[in-house]
């Protein structure tokens, strides 16, 4: 099949705080193919954003550190790059789209100036050429009257427009990988639909890979080819979208799928909520992180970390109760 663009193996990123070591990412493995979209879903604090900042090497220098694992981008080991080398990677090969479009742009400079400066920082071309590239990029993301918009301040644009500008900035260097961290969470559904459509269209045209971080499963179903479910810093399940939806294996994934009310059903039955709260990340690392919320928990779950195993080709799961020899039946009561 197509070639692997990004391969992350057993990534561990810890934060060193006065009150203890927070294991924000504690064993994440996945690979992303050229031109595909992968979704990372998880709750807040599950480490999905830290995973992306680790790949971009954008961790807070004082407290955060990658302690283990490999991040391969093509043949390059991202962990071994120097600060200077990573800078050129960020501008040319990666691009990032953040959650809040209003705060990702500097409010005191015009859109045009921010875009041209960004382009000039990575390419040796004239100001005029950079300006033209920027106008083209704005037109490409469907902004009407791009010349006029170049002279607008960010606060004069709506949230959806700002996010388009950010996407334009991301695509004008023709990156191989776009990391989108909750790109539509701050937007309304009708605008979200527009932005997702735009991302898909750009991907079709340029063959970019997208790493989409979100907590919204609907967005994943719409956008992604593969999906990784994270919980408390770990990959708990990793498969193609269709496989994950049709045949989810991890009890946490079941909980996620069942706890959302379905628009198409009129059922007013009590929602199947996962009891309890996610664990404190300073306490994890000696057992299955989900055991205290899992109705299928056994003694083994309390004592050992379940390894991420490939049960069927391309479908990975980290659960003691799901293996070649024994399987769990989904739909057992979640009353735990």
């Amino acid at each position, binding site marked *: 099949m197509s070639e692997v663009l990004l391969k992350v193996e057993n990534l561990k990123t810890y934060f060193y705080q006065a009150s203890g070591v927070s294991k924000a990412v504690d064993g994440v493995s996945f690979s992303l193919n050229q031109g595909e979209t992968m979704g990372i879903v998880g709750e807040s604090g599950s480490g999905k954003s830290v995973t992306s900042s680790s790949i971009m090497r954008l961790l807070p220098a004082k407290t955060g550190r990658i302690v283990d694992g490999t991040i391969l981008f093509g043949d390059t080991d991202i962990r071994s790059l120097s600060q200077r080398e990573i800078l050129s990677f960020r501008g040319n090969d990666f691009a990032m789209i953040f959650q809040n479009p209003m705060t990702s742009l500097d409010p005191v400079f015009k859109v045009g100036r921010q875009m041209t400066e960004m382009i000039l920082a990575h390419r040796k071309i004239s100001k005029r050429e950079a300006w033209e590239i920027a106008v083209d990029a704005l037109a490409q993301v469907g902004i009407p009257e791009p010349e006029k918009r170049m002279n607008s301040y960010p606060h004069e644009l709506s949230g959806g427009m700002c996010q388009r500008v950010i996407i334009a900035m991301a695509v004008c260097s023709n990156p191989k990988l776009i990391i989108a961290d909750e790109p539509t969470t701050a937007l309304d559904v009708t605008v979200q639909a527009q932005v997702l459509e735009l991302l898909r269209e750009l991907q079709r045209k340029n063959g970019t890979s997208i790493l989409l971080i979100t907590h919204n499963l609907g967005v994943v179903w719409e956008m992604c080819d593969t999906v990784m479910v994270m919980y408390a810093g770990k990959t708990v399940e990793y498969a193609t979208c269709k496989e994950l939806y049709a045949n989810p294996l991890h009890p946490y994934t079941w909980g996620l799928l069942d706890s959302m009310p379905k628009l198409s059903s009129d059922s007013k039955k009590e929602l199947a909520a996962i009891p309890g709260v996610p664990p404190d990340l300073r306490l994890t690392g000696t057992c299955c992180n989900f055991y*205290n919320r899992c109705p299928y928990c056994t003694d083994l779950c309390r004592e050992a970390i379940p390894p991420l195993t490939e049960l069927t080709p391309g479908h990975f799961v980290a659960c003691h109760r799901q293996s070649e020899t024994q399987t769990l039946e989904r739909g057992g009561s979640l009353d735990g």
Partner: protein
Amino acid sequence: MGDKKSRPSGDALGREANIEMLKRERRANNAWHKLKRNKIAMAGLFVIVFMVLVAIFAPLLAPYPPNKVNPGQAYLPFGSPGHIFGTDDLGRDLLSRIIYGGRISLIVAVGATFVGATLGILLGLTAGYFGGWLDSLIMRIMDGMFSFPFILMAMILITVIGNGVLNVTFAIGIANVPSFARVVRGQVHIVKREEYCNAGKVIGVSNTRQLFCHILPNTMSQIIVYATLRVADAIISEAFLSFLGLGIALPTASWGSILKTGRECLTTAPHVATIGGVFILVTVLGFNLLGDGIRDIMDPKMKQ
């Protein structure tokens, strides 16, 4: 690095472990523990505590009464036997005068800040919370007071009410009111837009309760930082007023009045003014360092 090889425990994520974690976090986020980690602020605190202790135990520490005149031993230099800091124009022991003077200077500075803060908080809370014409009225009066330089303001007040420890304290305090009122009003404007103030209104919390149970406690940390920095200013103000002869009247010792004595003999006995100046400098620095330190630990972004 990496995983600590801890024995797999029966209930790693259980209730006990979580409560233990909460305790550790409380300890780490405890204001005192954060301050202890800030070395510069601790240095400031050390200076202040030292000065305060010296002021409290002045009668025990001072080798001579501060006003004991001994004309035969005037202008003894620094390091003379029996008078470590030397003596001034009337032969009074400088060490004793510094020790007793510290008492007056600190009382005036802290007292003035207290007066300024109390009035400023009341005015700032009222103006910021109620807004409208009351806000305009209070703040225009404050602006009027602001248009006089701080020291000029204090000087005018002292000329009107006369000098003496109490009056100087009061004068510097009044001159401090506008700046406190402005800081408090600004904070109130931020806090009163917080959702919990709206939540209070929906529940039916009265204005007084809202102001004193919710808004004031939430602005207090900013006020404390500001007050610490103002104490340093008040020490300088007292010294300056006394230096001009408007503050603490001689023969009562204060760091300002020691400076004034020193000015008259600056060429013949420079140690008098120098020692007074050094004590003012160190104490002011102490308050400033502590104030900056508290501001840093109050800032949630400074979490480590």
